[in-house]
């Protein structure tokens, strides 16, 4: 037996640790910042939540959630809260460093008012339905609200400006109340839930300060250009902000479409505004992963991760189109645009989140309390297949993701700035740490250097930046990943490259750059063999006998062409561990559900580093076939507005 199995003891210990609820008193409990609390010029990782709903979101309320933003922040800090639906105390094993509650701006905080018998809203049609109190009328009322939110046609009596303003103020107050600089950061934020024709174009909007008095909802406009205008105006009066789109996987090709909302080709101005206002993209959350799709990446054996959520929300079961709905391919098209129009509209850093609707950022796979209240609050309810959200059964929802931000200290400004400059990474839940740098002259042994991070910052750029001006034959990337001590070991680190070739088409290639256990790639195919699987499905236990606790590499692109625009991001893969549904099945003594994988390989994605060639090296094309879309009703290619020949 390998000596590594001493670590098995740790894994078993971790599994058996009971989660003890903490009582109310925890508001007196704090902790000092990292280390001595001084700023770290080389940055620390701060893990947190950037996408979460509470009772102020009408859909969350309809799922039975009564916990509000205060409860959400308490949970993120590590306190136990009482789950509204199960009545049980829930608590994270590893607390977060920061969190942002992002309730829907559409009818923000209205549901509690509709239920209040004293509110004049009870006289309204929806109010009357709700006050009837039976299940059918309640569902009918909820349906009206959701339909209105989905179609963007507001119900006038629910958008009274005075009521809306006080509802937003409550959110801001909760964020400010729980902000403890150096200990726990909150960001003032909300969700703009644009969903024209069921195409998901949702963006979360974040402010660097307390935010403005009025927020911009999908009732104001469903077009992101209008959201950007709002963002730009707010910025000009001192409310610095950014927005992060999510669930491109169910956007029906709208999120990364090659045209504007008005149907015009993307031009330089549009691309600049997109990159300025939306510096990051959410790559995974409970409603599935948006990195890529098996149909788009047939050579990627890890492409099917959490990909069972496929239907457009509120569409009654229409499957989302795959093309122009996934991040890897948008990043690639982005560098194509950089070449074609001189600006990149998809210049995204990578984050991940929960999108949980129970006011709890529960990113721990082994500690899953569900994400949609009534339909998944207990193992029995989750696995029974009884309920669904937008037609998808509970078992298809993944456990929440997490975001790591590299920042000098844990303050609102530092976390905000870290995301804005894209020095940020997303994970499927585990708190995996990733350093990722690009440069031209990293020595091979840099990764072994005690001053690795200092030297990498000095001679290269961190994740989220452009490579400095070309200084040698090919760019070099340094990557260092460390496992979550409460989760599985690491299988491998990969660098994914996307580029546009000389004929105007986009391509991607995945390189394994570091892996565990001294495996040898297959001599014929070059493929690295799978790491193995230690999960016992019957007990939902695994061991860390395989995989490594840290992986690192200095890697030079062997296929580099200095005339081609390119983008590089890092992906870190864990060894297989049980999916939440497998933990549930063991608890209930049943077989794990057949619809989903029993084990998953959790992962982290580090924000890209971009290469833009010297214009003198680039031979621009007249026509980029990879960046054309044909609208069926016009016969025009969107992109250049040339007629189809």
């Amino acid at each position, binding site marked *: 037996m390998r000596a590594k199995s001493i670590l098995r003891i740790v894994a078993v210990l971790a599994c058996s640790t009971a989660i003890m609820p903490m009582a109310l008193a925890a508001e007196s409990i704090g902790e000092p910042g990292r280390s001595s609390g001084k700023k770290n010029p080389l940055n620390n990782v701060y893990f947190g939540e950037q996408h979460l709903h509470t009772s102020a979101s009408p859909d969350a309320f309809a799922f039975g959630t009564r916990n509000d933003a205060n409860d959400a922040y308490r949970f993120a800090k590590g306190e136990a809260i009482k789950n509204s639906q199960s009545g049980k105390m829930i608590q994270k094993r590893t607390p977060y460093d920061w969190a942002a509650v992002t309730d829907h701006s559409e009818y923000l905080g209205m549901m509690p008012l509709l239920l209040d018998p004293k509110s004049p809203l009870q006289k309204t049609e929806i109010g009357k339905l709700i006050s009837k109190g039976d299940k059918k009328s309640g569902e009918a009322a909820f349906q009206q609200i959701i339909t209105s939110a989905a179609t963007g046609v507001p119900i006038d009596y629910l958008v009274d400006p005075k009521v809306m303003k006080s509802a937003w103020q409550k959110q801001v107050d909760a964020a400010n109340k729980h902000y403890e600089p150096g200990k726990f950061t909150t960001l003032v934020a909300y969700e703009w839930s644009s969903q024209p024709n069921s195409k998901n174009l949702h963006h979360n909007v974040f402010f660097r300060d307390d935010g403005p008095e009025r927020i911009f909802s999908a009732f104001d406009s469903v077009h992101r250009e209008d959201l950007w205008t709002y963002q730009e105006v707010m910025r000009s009066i001192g409310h610095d902000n950014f927005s992060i789109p999510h669930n491109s996987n169910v956007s029906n090709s709208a999120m990364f479409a090659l045209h504007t909302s008005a149907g015009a080709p993307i031009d330089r101005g549009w691309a600049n505004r997109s990159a300025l206002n939306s510096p990051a993209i959410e790559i995974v959350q409970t409603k599935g992963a948006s990195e890529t799709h098996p149909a788009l990446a047939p050579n990627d054996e890890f492409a099917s991760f959490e990909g069972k959520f496929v239907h457009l929300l509120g569409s009654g079961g229409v499957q989302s189109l795959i093309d122009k709905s996934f991040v890897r391919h948008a990043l690639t098209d982005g560098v194509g645009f950089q070449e074609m129009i001189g600006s990149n509209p998809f210049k995204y850093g990578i984050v991940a989140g929960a999108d949980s609707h129970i006011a709890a950022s529960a990113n721990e796979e082994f500690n899953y309390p569900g994400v949609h209240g009534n339909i998944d609050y207990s193992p029995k309810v989750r696995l029974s297949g009884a309920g669904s959200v937008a037609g998808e059964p509970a078992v298809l929802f993944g456990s929440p993701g997490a975001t790591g931000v590299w920042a000098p200290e844990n303050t609102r400004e530092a976390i905000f700035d870290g995301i804005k400059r894209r020095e940020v990474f997303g994970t499927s839940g585990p708190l995996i740490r990733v*350093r990722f740098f690009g440069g031209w002259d990293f020595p091979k042994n840099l990764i072994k250097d005690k001053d690795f991070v200092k030297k990498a910052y000095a001679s290269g750029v961190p994740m989220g930046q452009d490579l400095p001006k070309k200084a040698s034959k090919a760019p070099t990337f340094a990557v260092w990943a460390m496992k979550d001590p409460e989760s599985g070991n690491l299988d491998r680190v990969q660098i994914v490259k996307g580029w546009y070739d000389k004929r105007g088409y986009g391509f991607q290639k995945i390189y394994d750059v570091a892996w565990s256990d001294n495996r040898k790639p297959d001599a014929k195919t070059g493929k690295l063999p799978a790491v193995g699987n230690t999960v016992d499905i019957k007990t939902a236990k695994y061991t860390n006998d395989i995989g490594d606790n840290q992986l690192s590499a200095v890697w030079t692109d062997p296929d580099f062409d200095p005339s081609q625009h390119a983008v590089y991001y890092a992906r870190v893969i864990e060894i297989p561990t049980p999916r939440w549904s497998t933990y549930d099945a063991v608890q209930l003594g049943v077989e794990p559900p057949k619809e989903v994988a029993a084990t998953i390989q959790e992962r982290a994605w580090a924000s890209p580093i971009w290469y833009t060639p010297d214009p003198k090296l680039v031979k621009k094309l007249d026509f980029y076939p990879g960046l054309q879309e044909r609208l069926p009703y016009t016969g025009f290619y969107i992109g250049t507005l040339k007629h189809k020949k």
Partner: protein
Amino acid sequence: MRVTNRILRLAKAPLLQFLLLGALIYGAYWLYGPPDEAAGERKILVESSRIESFVNQWKARWNRLPTQQELDGLISAYVREEILYRQAVAIGLNKDDPVTRRRMGQKLEFLTKNIALVVEPEEAQLAAYYADNLDKYRDPDLITFAHAFLDPDVRDKTTLADAEVLLRQLRAAGIPSPSTFAAGDRFMLENHYAAISELGIRRLFGGGFSKAVMKLEPGTWHGPVLSGFGVHLVYVYEHVTAPAPDFAKVRHLVLKNWQFDHQEKFYQDFIDNLKNSYEIVIAQIPKDRVLGGNMETKLGPRRNQTAAESQ
């Protein structure tokens, strides 16, 4: 509402706290009067206090006074509701209505739980409760520690033996210096943390390690200490326990927690007492009315059905 306030006010007298739970049930008659009489009375009085509360609620919600028309609307709605309610009770519609049953039950539950939240213990009782839970009110212990990491991925079978050797060397060398850490393997986190809490360590190293390190004696090297990463040798410079806060300063928190802790107990006692006052007879359940077997047979087919439907 008025009735509730009255109960809540009364409940603040410590001696009355348990009596009150009883009064809630047996005193309902006294508080509300005989039910038939209320339903049968043919007079509806909208008191000025009731109107004042309509106005106040409107103001709180809409930030202005209601217009005459709006207020008339509220009043006539109230009158209409009152008439319908009395009539409905008079003809017995409240009996066997599942929504009404549940609602009444909930009301009593909320009322009971609210009472539990305003009951105040004797000062000595509270002080004892505070003493039992001191750690909740104290700032967390802070330790300053250094560690050297031994990587099982690098050292494989020799990891633990290497740790023994290194531990002897480190103990001989005494207080850690930068060269000490060079003896360990490469590790992404820091080798030295100053004034950090158990929670802080847990965020970085995981729960097993953080708990172990908090128990170590300062002033010497310890190990091997295991984490999710591998093997560590740990030196604790100091371990500072924060002084207990002044009871007067945290009394409001202690009280809140005492009430929170006792809320469930009060409620359970209340239910149990009530239960004891009833004779409960349950009819025999025929065998063919209950699903046999274990959970698997119950859950399996249902799940498959759903899968088939969704395809």
